[in-house]
Structure formats: structure tokens, C-alpha cells
């Protein structure tokens, strides 16, 4: 897979997305499920967004001050991310959107939601057919479409 990130940038991205979607119960965080690689690949394919993305990662690094972002506590990381969300809103929206796009596309995550983890087809869903009794009230209404004189 094409990569556009240094090792340090990748580590920073991993730490960041792990705060955006943290671990929950038995479900690992976005960082532990490989979402950073998916995000990096998406930006590798979209050079027009790369500058915003890399500038944003740098903003996180700068906001982290004299200690590397990945080494900071969860509370500190959250505070730094909230700062960058305010100063770099376009980047941050991209980051959160791509984190969600990567995370919720994972079969392991979908199965944890009670879904099959499979694509829409060929399985589909079984649903109860339409129940005509639902129309009991509506069928009592007289026709009311607007009449037109020809």
C-alpha cells in the first residue's frame, strides 16, 4: 500500500484516531483496527486534500508542545484535539469523517452492532410485508385531490 506518512506521523495519526473512536467494551479503538492505514491510503489517492491533511497532523504535533502526542495521557490528547478542532476545522472534519468511514466499514465493528458484517448484497434483509390494516384511518378519508376544470 502506498504510504505518504513518516513513522512518526503514522504514530501520531494512530494515537489521534484512537481518541476519536476509543476502545469500547470488547471493541478495539480505531487506531488498533488499522484505520490509520485506510486513512493514509485515502489521502494518498487524493493529492488535492493531502496538504490539508499533513498540515493538520503537524498542527496536532505543534499543539502537543514539548512532549510527543502519542506519549501524552488520554485527557491531554483529548484537550489537544479539541484545540486543533477549533483552529483547523476543515482538517478536523476530514479526520473525523475518514475515521468514521474506515471504522464503521469494518466487519468486526459491524458485527458488534448486531449486523452480519457482510455487504448489502446478496443477503439483504427479511422484512414483514406491508400490512394493509395500517391504512384503516387513511381509507376513511374522502378523496381530496384538487379538482381541475378541463
Amino acid at each position: 500500500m502506498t504510504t505518504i506518512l513518516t513513522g512518526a506521523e503514522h504514530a501520531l495519526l494512530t494515537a489521534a484516531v484512537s481518541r476519536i473512536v476509543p476502545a469500547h467494551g470488547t471493541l478495539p479503538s480505531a487506531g488498533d483496527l488499522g484505520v490509520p492505514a485506510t486513512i493514509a491510503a485515502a489521502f494518498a489517492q487524493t493529492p488535492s486534500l493531502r496538504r490539508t491533511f499533513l498540515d493538520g497532523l503537524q498542527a496536532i504535533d505543534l499543539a502537543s508542545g514539548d512532549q510527543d502526542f502519542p506519549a501524552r495521557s488520554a485527557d491531554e490528547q483529548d484537550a489537544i484535539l479539541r484545540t486543533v478542532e477549533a483552529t483547523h476545522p476543515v482538517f478536523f472534519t476530514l479526520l473525523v469523517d475518514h475515521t468514521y468511514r474506515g471504522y464503521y466499514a469494518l466487519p468486526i465493528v459491524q458485527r458488534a452492532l448486531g449486523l452480519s458484517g457482510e455487504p448489502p448484497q446478496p443477503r439483504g434483509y427479511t422484512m414483514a410485508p406491508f400490512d394493509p390494516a395500517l391504512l384503516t384511518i387513511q381509507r376513511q378519508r374522502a378523496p381530496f385531490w384538487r379538482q381541475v376544470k378541463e
Partner: protein
Amino acid sequence: MGHTDQATATPHWSQPDVLIIGAGASGAASAWRLASAGLRVVCLEQGDWVAPESLAGNGPDWEHRRLTNFHPDPNVRQLPADYPINVSGSAYSPLMFNAVGGSTLHWSAHFPRFHPSDFRVRSLDGVGDDWPLTYDELEPYYDLNDRMIGVSGINGDPAHPPRSPRQTPPIPLGPLGETIARGFDRLGWHWWPSDSAIISAPYGGRHACNNCGPCPLGCPIGASSSAEATYWPLAVRLGVELRTNCRVREITVDRHGRLQGALYYDATGQLQEQTAPIVIVACNGVGTPRLLLNSRSRHFPDGLANHNGVVGKNLMYHAIAGVLGVFAEDLESYKGPSAACIFSNEFYETDERRGFVRGYQLQISRQSGPVSTALGVNPAHRVPWGRDHHAAFASRFGRTGVIGVTGEDLPEACNEVVLDPLLTDAHGIPAPLVRYRLSENSLAMLDHGVARATEALEASGAVETIVNASAQKVGWHLLGTCRMGDDSSRAVVDRWGQAHSVPNLFIVDGSTFVTSAGTNPTTTIQALALRTADYILRERANLGAGPKGDA
């Protein structure tokens, strides 16, 4: 049957009776109708067949593809078949798809008919214009089209004249649809199961819908009654020659100004000419005016059929907003065709006490998929990130429904498609520039509709409502840019879709719409296309394009 019939050998018509440009909803319907009467038809399409197995719904990345290479906005998608559209003069981007089947490949298949009143807007409400035809005149073609493609629904709707029996029962409402239907009942407001161009039971040799959800990604099993799954296999079998990856540069006339044919770039990029005595344009409300404006000649220096400067004017997208309701219980809202399982026409007609004329339809749709749930309908209501993310996500997934407001926007000359002075497509053909804004009337209508949608969601038990005031700033429907009318000084085509200033040139897509009605257009587009085809069949000898002894 199905998409694979594309492989059927077709004769090569060097001298067709009719040339059709565009293989979407209207091009497909007219091609089938003309070929079924024995005419030789060639259709040029800038896109290609989309193999069902290649559709996004077959793969785990389907929600990603909806946001990238299957996005409904061609400026986002940027596939080879697409042309760029300059929307810098507009807050709205038009949606379309370029392929065999056209935009029906990514439609939501909500398939309502216009009302009788929609054809008499000027007479009834003093705005827009009357159509040069009536609902009654179009009804047989609505019926024929429904039979041809298969429409689900149920008879007895008190808000509309009786319709012929639907081909299959309504699509399932699911717990979400039933919950909101009861909300409308509580308010005493109309609701009814939608007419959907999705077959809920086998029909015409096609499989029934299996409720997978994301119809706008194209239907991998052919249950959506889209043009490539319905009309095209039949038309190809009848001998229609469908040439794909062929992009028309211009429609040509001879030195006397008489229609000649079309110049197009074939799949290899080679310029070709196809002559025909009759040409039908079916390129949608952006593509059709673009093509006519690009077809300049001594006789038509401002674009073909543009004798009165009306080509490209009066673009109507529909005024659209939505309100998302969040419910406390799991309503499995990711199951079932995503759009409009039920609708309400309670506010469809003019009531001047509301502060605007004309009206809107409320459409109840579902959200499909965990990614779109997390992203929300707009960034302002994305599920929050951080510590509370999982709890917030759980409170929404499967528990949300949208009531969409689809309002009638009226024809205005300032909403228009023109040629961009610089931008071109990959073949160097001038691209369109679109200018569009919502009128005060439309904005007042949306305000009213958003308030009613919120009220309905609250009556249905929603614990939270989130307004998406102007849904995603996109142009859902492309209408009105080559309007129909009896008055040749104000209209581009006559009541049969024939250009006033170019005999034998017909337009069958949504650009001929006089007004937009407060509901989805494809039913009416296809009915009009079938009607124009019948006119051509009936009048062909008088059009100077009749059989020459070899038919």
C-alpha cells in the same frame, strides 16, 4: 433476462429512422416504443453499461464508494463518462449519472405521478405556466410505463385520482415507517405507501427486492425498475443499436437549416457522423441545453432550437430540505429501500394562508448503514467523537428516520444552464455553467415544510429532531431548461416535444417540464417520452421522415 442481454447481436443501422441521444430513463423508454413498432433506432450514450456485479452494494466498501466513485455528483465522482459542470455561480450541484440507464442507476426510485392540478399551475394559482396537456392525456402513458417497468404500491390513495393496479404490493414499511405512519394518523394528516419503481415481488422475469437498503448505489439484483434493467434489454432485443462510450459534440443541420444528424466522438475518440431524419435528445435538464447551445450554425447562431433565447432558462431542481428524527427504540431503520417508503400529500396544494403558493410532498426515508449514521446528514449533527462516541452512536444507529420536504420550485429565467467560457470535458466540448438559487416562495415553502416535518416526527415519538435546512445543496432533479408550450415565442418545444424551430428534432427528458410539481419527476418524464414516441409513429409520414419503401 436482465442486463446480460446487452450481448445480443444487433444490426448495424447506417440509416436509422430515429437517432436518440442519451440512454437514460427517457431515451430508453422512447427507444423501446419506437423499436417495438419496427423502426430502426440508433442510440448514442456517452457512458457504458455498468455490470451489476461491479455495483457498490456487492462489496464491503459500499459506503465509501457512495462518497467517492459512485457519488451522485459528477464533479465529485469524475469518472471518464462524466463531464465537468461549473457550479461556481450556484450554491447547488446537480446530480446525475452517465451510463446506460442514466441517473436511474443511482435514483431512490420514488415514483409518484403528477397531479391533475400540476398541469394547470397558471390557471389555478397565477404563477408559472399551464402545460399544453392534461393529466388525463398523459394517464394512458403513465399506465403503460408502470406496466413496462413494474411499480409497487397500493390503490385507494385519497390524495390522487385512482390509478391502475400497481404491479406489486408496497415495499415494506418496517418498524420505522409504521411508527411515522402512526404519527401522521395522530395528527389527522394524509400518508400513503409510496409508488416505488422497485418490485416487491417477482415481475417481468426480474427478482423481487430483498430490502438491502442503498438503492442509490444501483441495484445489483435488478429489483430497481431502472432503465438499464427494464427498457434496455427489451429495446436491444428489438434491434435498437445502442452505441456506448459515444459522446455527441453537436447536432447538425444542413445549409438550409434542416436537421441532419449528430457529430460524436466514438469510444476510440474518433469523430463520427450519424445522420437521421429524426433526432431525439434525452440528455437531462443540464445535458440537453448544453448540447443544443453547443450546436451552433448559420441558421442557429445562438444554439439549435434557441430561436427565442429560452434554451437553458428556467432550471428547476426542486426545493428540498429534511428533518432527521431520533427515536428511543431500535426501529431497524437500516433495513429496506432507503427512500420514501411512505409519503404525505397533506400540504401538496396551494393554501395561501401559509404565505406561499404551490406546495410540497413529505417523504419518509430511512438511513442505511453505520458509516452514514456516524457521519449524519450534515457535519453539524455528526455523531460526536471522543469518550461519548459509542454511546451517542448507539442512540442513533437503527433509530433514525428522515422526513424530506420536496417542494415545487417555479420557473425563473435567472436559474439557468449556459456554456462555460473556458471549461471543457475530456473531448474539448464546452462544459455547462449552472446558475441557481431558491426563490423567496421556495424558501417560505421549505420553512413551512420543515416545521410540519418536525411536528410529524414529534407526533411519531421522536426524542430529538435535527433540521437539515437545505438538503446537501444539491440539485436532485434537472427540469425545465427547454420548456414545452404552444407559444413558440416562449417555449422551446411544442406539446409533443418537437422543437418549434427545428422540425423533426424532439426532446424527451425533464428539460421540457413547464413546472416542476412538488414531487419526483421520472414517472412523468418516461410517460412523456412514450407519448412523444407515439406521436412520431403516428405522424412520421407527415414529418417528412416516413418509410421510403424499405421499411
